[in-house]
């Protein structure tokens, strides 16, 4: 029983660490502020949720402590991290940061839309 719970905790920790590292690599490698935000806000959120879930299972199985603070942290990060990503992305567009020069579609650009129709 304890071996099975240990392997579940280890699996969750490895998944969370891989997602965090992939998010950081995407933030370094991607060409544009919007694609970087796509990598950072989604992959980091899921990785941290997996790591906090592993911590919760560790305290619940090994020590018989039900830590409701970890559940509250998981819910809070899952709700607020995509919202902050959306806000900073909208602020970047409104303050005039250019898209990548190979991107093909910009639905918010009013002048380009009027020229097209």
């Amino acid at each position, binding site marked *: 029983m304890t071996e099975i719970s*240990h392997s579940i*905790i*280890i699996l969750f*920790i*490895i998944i*969370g*660490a891989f997602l*965090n*590292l992939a*998010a*950081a*690599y995407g*933030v*370094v490698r991607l060409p544009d*502020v919007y694609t*970087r*935000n796509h990598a*950072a*806000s989604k992959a*980091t*959120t899921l*990785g*941290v949720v997996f*790591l*906090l879930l*592993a*911590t919760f299972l*560790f*305290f619940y199985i*090994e*020590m018989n*402590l039900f*830590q409701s*603070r*970890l559940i*509250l*942290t998981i819910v*809070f*990060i899952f709700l*607020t*991290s995509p*919202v*902050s*990503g959306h*806000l*900073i*992305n*909208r*602020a*970047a567009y*409104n*303050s005039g*940061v250019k898209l990548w020069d190979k991107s093909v579609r910009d639905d918010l650009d009013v002048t380009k839309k009027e020229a097209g129709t």
Partner: protein
Amino acid sequence: MLENIVVITLFTIACSMVLLIYRVIKGPSTPDRVIALDAIGINLVAFIALISIELKTSAFLDITLLIGILAFIGTVTFAKYLEKGVIIDHDRD
């Protein structure tokens, strides 16, 4: 087994925070830096959770929630500053 995995994962998260610090230093615009700092704050939550596994104590679990709240408030404040120029505006219309 679990302790070794936790130490390796701490090293991995430290590497990802170093990559994000590269983006904070080099990033060509201000929203790049804000995104990278927000991701560093979220990684710090994971770091503290793993340290509390490693030390087998539950005394640091409040700090995870605190850092999550502070990262959210800081990012929202920077987004409003970049968009409007002020953070708390005084007009009444």
